[in-house]
């Protein structure tokens, strides 16, 4: 299979999208951007490549099902979950080694004796609980190793610390230092070997069901899929971090063009796009081909962007995903200023102290973020039908609702508003479309070698 690759290096997350030669999406990957775009880029790309292979595997399973009933019994989804578990365990092993190294370092000398067994107990508990995280139907709040490992580590650390002997803060500090090193290290995953381990795990878990023949069929299929060549024929990078990485100049496109193009690809009727990311809000106008005709973006200040909501969530000790549902329970929206994130935080505390309902204040905060977006939209040329909302914030149901109300108020009721659960990938999708254009025009650029760990691509 030949693929065009688009990578969107956002300030919060890094996304990759693979398109086949016909422009079909065959793989997507996402990871937290960390403080290291190089690693984030490699991880997202590798995840997209793995996803493409699982897509191939699914197709192979379907074909095999026609002639082999045992093979049909090997669900690709279970294999993919097992694959993720293998990746998690590999990272957990790295984390364990890193913590070991830290404990051996000189500054830890005084605490080594107490911390070593406590950390070992925490890590053992994490390893034991890992399989549950990837069990069929398990709900994960995040797919990023950092988030999953942090939650598991802190949970176990609280128990171990509570049992006496070691302060929780010391254990938590150990994790914080170790995870930074683990997640910013460039590493490669051998897809074939990992998949084989995953396949073995799936087969073993099935006990006496399908028997030896099925186990072998699954392993064989896994080997075959791992060996299928995936050739990357073109690459385009976009997003906030695109300048940080030494991408070839011809492989860089502005995220404004990419988001506009991606949104237009997802909804071809799109003429206006609003993208609210971590620190950027972009109001984009596109023509009937998805080419940008005008845009505005926030300037200097990120109040009104995703981080604004992140900050508010932190202030309230809530998860980001909890804000929208809570705000939807508001009885009225309290007016909150939107000129500054920090001021809004202070206002939030003040209003809570005055006894106002958290839900009502949150509704006001959502309205204020969207009012800023409306101002940008107005300056970019307004909202034309159809209007597509993209970026991480569009996952927030309250944000989407308020936007709909404001668009109705300002531009009338006839505007179709598109939101997509996968809108976070729009920038990477646009980048991949540009890469495909480049490939078709005979001047493709390729992803630099730094982000292509051995074994990641065939």
């Amino acid at each position, binding site marked *: 299979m030949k693929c065009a690759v688009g990578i969107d290096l956002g300030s919060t997350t890094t996304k990759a999208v693979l398109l086949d030669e016909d422009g079909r999406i065959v793989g997507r990957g996402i990871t937290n951007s960390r403080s290291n775009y190089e690693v984030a880029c490699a991880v997202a790309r590798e995840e997209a490549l793995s996803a493409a292979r699982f897509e191939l595997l699914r197709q192979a399973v379907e074909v095999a099902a026609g002639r082999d009933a045992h093979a049909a019994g090997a669900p690709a989804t279970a294999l993919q979950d097992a694959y993720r578990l293998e990746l998690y365990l590999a990272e957990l092993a790295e984390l364990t080694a890193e913590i070991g190294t830290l404990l051996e370092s000189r500054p830890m000398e005084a605490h080594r004796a107490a911390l070593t067994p406590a950390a070992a107990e925490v890590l053992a508990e994490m390893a034991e609980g890992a399989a549950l995280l990837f069990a069929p139907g398990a709900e994960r709040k995040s797919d990023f190793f950092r988030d999953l490992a942090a939650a598991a580590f802190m949970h176990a650390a609280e128990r171990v610390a509570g049992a006496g002997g070691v302060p929780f803060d010391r254990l938590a500090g150990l994790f914080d230092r170790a995870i930074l090193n683990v997640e910013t290290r460039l590493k490669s995953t051998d897809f074939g070997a990992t998949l084989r381990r995953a396949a073995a795990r799936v087969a073993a878990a099935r006990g006496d069901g399908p028997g030896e023949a099925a186990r072998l069929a699954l392993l064989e299929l896994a080997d075959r899929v791992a060996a299928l060549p995936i050739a990357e024929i073109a690459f385009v990078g976009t997003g906030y971090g695109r300048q940080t990485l030494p991408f070839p100049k011809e492989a860089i496109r502005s995220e404004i063009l990419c988001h506009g193009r991606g949104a237009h690809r997802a909804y071809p009727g799109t003429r206006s796009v609003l993208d609210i990311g971590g620190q950027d809000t972009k109001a984009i106008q596109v*023509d009937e081909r998805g080419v940008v005709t005008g845009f505005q973006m926030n300037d200097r200040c990120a109040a009104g962007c995703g981080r604004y909501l992140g900050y508010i969530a932190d202030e309230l000790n809530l998860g980001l995903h909890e804000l929208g549902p809570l705000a939807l329970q508001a009885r009225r929206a309290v007016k909150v200023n939107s000129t500054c994130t920090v001021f809004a935080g202070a206002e939030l505390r003040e209003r809570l102290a005055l006894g106002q309902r958290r839900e009502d204040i949150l509704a006001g905060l959502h309205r204020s973020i969207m009012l800023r977006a409306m101002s940008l939209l107005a300056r970019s040329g307004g909202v034309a039908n159809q209007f597509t909302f993209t970026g991480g914030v569009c996952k927030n149901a309250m944000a989407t609702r308020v936007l709909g109300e404001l668009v109705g108020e300002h531009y009338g009721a006839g505007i179709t508003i598109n939101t997509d659960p996968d809108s976070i990938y729009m920038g990477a999708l646009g980048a991949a479309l540009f890469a495909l254009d480049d490939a078709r025009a005979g001047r493709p650029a390729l992803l630099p070698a730094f982000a292509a760990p051995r074994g990641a691509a065939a």
Partner: protein
Amino acid sequence: MSAPQAAAPTPQAAKDASQRRQKAMLADYFERLAAARENGTKVVYTFVPGNLVELIDALDMLPVLPEINALQSAMRKRSAGYIAEAEKAGHAEDVCSYVKCDIGMLKSGNTGPTGTKLPEPDLLLLSYTGCFTFMKWFELLRQEYHCPVVMLHVPYQAGGAVSGEMQRYVVDQLRQKVVPALEAVAGRRLDDGALRERLERSRQAEDDLVAVWDSARNRPSPIDAYFGGVYYIGPIFSAFRGGDGAVAYYRELRREVEDRVAHGEGPTTPDGSGAPERHRLVVEGPPNWTHFNDFWRMFSREGAVMVSSTYTRVGGLYDGGFRHDAERPLDSLAEYCLGCYTNLSLPARVDLLERDIRKYAADGFLINSVKSCNSFSAGQLLMLRELEQRTGVPGGFIESDLVDPRYFGKANIENRVQSYLQMLEARGKERTAA
């Protein structure tokens, strides 16, 4: 507006011979200013738009142009400190950063951009040509220096044209107020012949400057009429108009440009010759001075050449046909003041931009909106829409500031510039495909 030669770019910016000549002219000018008190030379502070340097020079006095000092300080990385000084003195964050930089420089010992001390003014000559901040600025300087102020009130071109009454109103003020005030400070009468000589030299330099602007009609354009343009306007917008030095400078500049046309060369950029011309842009709004070369490179490295700019018209609009005229001394000075870009209405500014987009066959236009400039930033988005509608040429919009480095967000501005240029590229391809 003036010569930014002594900026400290990294890496070292390439320069033309005319730029080196201008640098020497500036160094000499600041030396003369430093020695003014000792030599008994009188000093008149005045602003760039509507400046009357021929009159000042004909009375053997020296002009000081506060905006030039501010932008030169910014290019030499001194403006942040001066602005902090001004803020300590009570000037708010949103006040025009030229004003704060100038006030801060004054509070820090009034050392000019080249390191020599600037003399105090004997007179503040306020040519009011559309920027209301100028009035407040000189009020502040009057408070500091306790010197006389004379104001030339230039009526705003609200209707988009200069009437006979407007012209007479300015000439009367020149005759009855401005010239007598200058003579009082100089201690002698104005020599009419000396003024005419200077005005004739101004005309010669203006002819050459217009030829330089017109050269941007070539493909590739041999000049960058915005970033390069601010060097080109240096002598004529400031202390040198009407002098032999300016005549020689513009003659040399014109030759340089003609030579580049003959060789099919593009403009000199901070990197020497820039990338081959890919985009031709017209620009509205002043450049950012604190990151001047960085800002320029954002365009030059992408092959974006500015073929015209309104900023290079703030101190005189010569390509519309106006020239200083030795035969009509006060009348032509009045016309000059009335015709400065700063004195034009929004519709007239749109007309001018439209004219240049067509004249120079631009494929885009860009507005650099200045945060602390309320006079000229108001209405710029309306201008953008109107121009897009009239010409079908896409506009870009960025925001920065004149001399306050805090307002230049490099990553953000670069992002917008790249997005805009890539948008032009994509739309160009689309038009080709269609």
